[in-house]
Structures are given as C-alpha cells and as structure tokens.
C-alpha cells in the first residue's frame, strides 16, 4: 500500500537516505530499527509525505504521494512524535479534535460526526475519561495515548468507505516512557492493528519492544536498508551486530525475544 522506490534524501548538502526501497502492505505492523542518525526519522517523514525525496518515489496505492493534496494525505496518514509539548493549555478533547483539521473546510467548525469520531478515538486508546482534562496535566503515557487518539481521529474517515486504509506512523513513541507505559503503548498498537486493521509503521530503539509488537522489521543503517523481513528472520545476533556494531546474543524468553549485549567492555574498547 505504502511504498518507497529507490528514495534518496538529504538536508542541504548532508545526504541522509541513499536509494531506500520499502514496501509496506495494507495491514502491516512494521518496526523500523537502526542506530542514531541512520535515517529512521527522515524515512518516516518521507513515508508521511511531509518531506519529498530528491530522487526516487514514494507511492500510496500505486500513485505518488506528491500528487496528493496535504489534506488528502493527512486523511490517510497520521504521525505520532516521540513527545508532544503544547504551547498553550488545551483540553484533551480539543487536542484530539485538532486531528480533524484536514477533514474540515477553511472556516468550518467540528460537527457532531467529528465529535463522535474524536470520542471513539479516545475510547480506542483508553483515555476517554480524560477528555475534559488539560493536556499539560497528563502523565507522559496518558499524553502519548491522547496524541495517538488525535492521530486516529485524523485518519478516521467519516464515511468508512475505505476500511483498513488508515496508516499510523510512530517515531520512537516509547522513548520517553517508563516500563509500564511502554507496555501500554505496545498493547495499544497491538489492539489497533488487530481490531481496526490499521497499517502501522513504528521506529524504535527498543529491540524487545520491536520484537514483541511488530510482525516485520526493517533495519536501517547509514541511510540504506540493511535487512527487512519477518521478525524471526531479521532479528538475529549477526544482523544486530552488523546494525549497531555491538556483540549480542538473541535469546528466547517465553514468547518474546531478548537482545542481550555480550562483553560490552570489549566492544567499547574496540570502538
């Protein structure tokens, strides 16, 4: 459904992505992993259409992202950043309703349909009880859920004509959260994928999170795709070592996989 075809991108004279090709089918739950500065965030920006590749193409349902209007894109693809700070004191419901921007005419105001969609999104992310609260008073995990609700409200179509067409892109959504909230976000993504059929792309540094939540993984290193495929194939000790230049063991623990660093001192000395 969402594809990168030989996409290249740089900020000014600094190249970041070199001919990245990627195919994200409808209903996929894809994890993006790789070292700092590898180009994960940039790739997410290209996928969401807020940046355009300097060479190559980004395709949505087979046609280039660049031929679609901002509003049309925003109705299909929503982005959740690592952390959200609001400049002013909005209520949670107001923040979620901001997701409806692309669905409204220039001077239109949100109607009953938008309100219903916003409340459904709050319900889906488990923060319906907080709708009247000031966003700034929420905990980190609650904020993240409210922002995900805003993203869901953004890609919910009022006519429900294209179920499963919604794409959710999350950039390190758990980086600022403690263990409990990390698990909360993990199960939330799992739910959204299973129940709504949302297509989800999530970048993360947390390999355990990636292994637990995602179906497929894409490894990005130095602006190129190092490996991609089902989690079991990609998340091997050899690949992780190649990705981060760190010696690791990958061990099974119950149903999940753990990546355990080996001989850390040696690695640091070598680096």
């Amino acid at each position, binding site marked *: 459904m969402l594809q990168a075809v030989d996409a290249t991108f740089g900020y000014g004279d600094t190249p970041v992505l070199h001919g990245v090709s990627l195919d994200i089918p409808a209903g996929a739950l894809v994890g993006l992993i790789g070292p700092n500065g590898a180009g994960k965030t940039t790739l997410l920006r290209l996928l969401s259409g807020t940046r355009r590749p300097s060479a190559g193409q980004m395709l949505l349902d087979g046609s280039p992202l660049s031929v679609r209007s901002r509003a049309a894109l925003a109705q299909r693809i*929503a982005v959740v950043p690592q952390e959200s700070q609001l400049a002013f004191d909005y*209520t949670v419901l107001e923040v979620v309703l901001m997701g409806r921007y692309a669905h409204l005419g220039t001077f239109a105001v949100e109607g009953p349909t938008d309100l219903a969609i916003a409340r459904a999104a709050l319900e889906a992310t488990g923060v319906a009880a907080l709708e009247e609260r000031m966003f700034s008073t929420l905990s980190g995990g609650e904020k993240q859920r409210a922002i995900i609700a805003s993203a869901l409200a953004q890609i919910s179509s009022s006519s429900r004509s294209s179920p499963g067409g919604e794409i959710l892109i999350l950039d390190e959504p758990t980086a600022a959260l403690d263990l409990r909230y990390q698990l909360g976000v993990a199960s939330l993504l799992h739910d959204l994928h299973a129940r709504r059929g949302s297509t989800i792309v999530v970048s993360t540094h947390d390999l355990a999170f990636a292994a637990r939540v995602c179906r497929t993984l894409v490894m990005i290193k130095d602006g190129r795709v190092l490996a991609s495929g089902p989690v079991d194939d990609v998340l091997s000790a050899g690949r992780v070592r190649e990705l981060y230049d760190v010696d690791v063991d990958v061990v099974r623990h119950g149903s999940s996989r753990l990546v355990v660093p080996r001989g850390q001192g040696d690695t640091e000395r070598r680096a």
Partner: protein
Amino acid sequence: MRSIRTRILTAVLTFGGGALLTILLAPLIGSTPISVRRAFDWSVPFGDNPDAQIFFIARLPRTLAGALVGSTLASAGVVFQGLLRNPLATPFTLGVSAGAALGAMIAITFAPALAPSGIPAAPLASFAGSLLAVGIVYLLARARHRGLSTNTLLLAGVTMNAFFSALILFVQYFADFTDTFRILRWLMGDLDVSSYAPLVSTLPLVIASFAAFVWLARPLNLLSLGPDAAESRGLDVTGAQRVAFVSASLATGAAVSVGGPVGFIGIIVPHLVRLMVGADHRVVLPASALFGAAFLVACDVVSRTVMAPLELPVGIITALIGGPFFLWLLVRRR
C-alpha cells in the same frame, strides 16, 4: 463541553457587550463634566456648543483610537504568541515597535524641515519604520531555513530591537530639547489623536489583518502542537507562519502609528482572555480583540482622570499595570 460555535458566540456577545458599554461610557467621563443632551443638541451651532466640541473632537476620537489600538495590539499579541509558540511574546518582540520608534523619531527630528505641508509625518514614518524592521527580521528568519524558524525570528527580533534602540539614541543625540520632549511623549504611547483622520487611514489595513486573523485561528491551534505535528495534520505550516507574521506585523505597525508603542496590552489581554475562555484561538482571537478594545479605552479613562486636569499618556498606565502582571505570569509558570 459546549460546542465551539456556542463558545465563540458566547465570547463575542459577552466581550462585545463589555466593549460597547465601555466605548459608549468613556467619552462621557473626563475632567470637564459634559451633558449628553447638550452635546447632541443639533439646534445649537457646533462652534457655540462646548459640550459637543469636547465630545466629538476631544473625547470620541480618543476613545475610538483606544478601541482600535487596543483590539489590534491584543489580537496581534495572540497571533505572535501562537506563531512563536511562546506565551510571553508580545507584538513588539520582533522589533516592530523599535522600527516604528526610529521612524517616528526621524520624522519628529528632521521632517519639519522636509515637509512643511502640514501632513503629520510621524505616523507615516513610524509605519515605514515598522515595515523596515519586520522586513529585515523576516528575511533573516527565511534565509536560514526551509520555512520560518521561530528561534531565528525571536533572536533576530531581539537583535533588531537592540540595534534600532542604538539608532534611536544616535538620532536623539542630534535632536534639540523640544524634539527630544516630543519623542519621549511619543514613546510613552498616547491616544490623543484629536481627529478622525488617523483612524480612517489605518482602518483598511486593520480590517485586512483581522480578516487574516480569522483564517489563522485554526492554523494557530495546530501550530501549538509544533510545526512537524501541524504539518502531518495537513496544515501548510510555512504558509500559515507567513500569513501570521505579515498580518500581525502590519496590524501592529498600523496601531503603533496611531497611538505610539502602548505597552503590555498585547500580553495582558490574551492571558486574561485565555484564563476565561480556554486556549482555542477561534475563541481567544475575537475575545481578545474585543477585550483589548475595552481594556485600553478603560485605561485611557484612568489616564485622563487620575491626575486631572493633567492627562497622562495611556502607555504609563498600561505599563504600570502590565509590569507587575508580566512578573506574576513569569512566576506562575512553574
């Protein structure tokens, strides 16, 4: 939560009613008591009717100037705070007032020799000065970034304020005592326009800016999430920032050309309004425009009466209220 339509309507009716009442009452209050009945008695020739003269020539233009300047500076303050994502920003943060002051100063010091035609040069020159200042700030902020960098905007604004202040001191050094006195009075902010001409000439610009503000209300809501988040929600961030910057700067320049750099309106009013109506710019903008008008007109009544028959420049009153208020805001923000 009540629907946004109801919230906007309630705010407009409440704050509009307050503003209307203030504007109607203000011309009746002053050091010289006047009779409304005699002021509106058309059977007496205007030249023989001191009540009508005080009402229509001294007080009404001044009240209307207060309403125009107050509503413009208050709503421009809202737009600048939204654009810069900084609740402590004011309409003067980006150098508009310093540029305007330099322009006015040059006009006051040198223009009598250049333009003996009787056209008041200070308002025009101050508007030109504010355009120059914001033009430079805009180019600086655009040069370094794809869109408009708000950090660069802030730094460029602060630098321009300092640089223009230096130029002001330079010009002042060559001014004589009378000019220095007039310059100082101009800097205090004064609504004593004593004619309708400056109001009529700035009105088109103010109306155009307000039209832009109406469009900006929703984009400013999204911008408070941050530029990236706003962009991914479908907003043309760079376009919205440009419209916000240009319209708020022009409106501020127009207001300053009428009343001088009346301080603190652009920060006190938006904050009080947000405490009352919440953060949604669709409510905050109209409410601030109306409350700003009432607030400045009321401050002007105080400035005209508190030391009567002396008429203080209104900028002194707003600064006396605004300084402590700003500090309170600063301390209250954790």
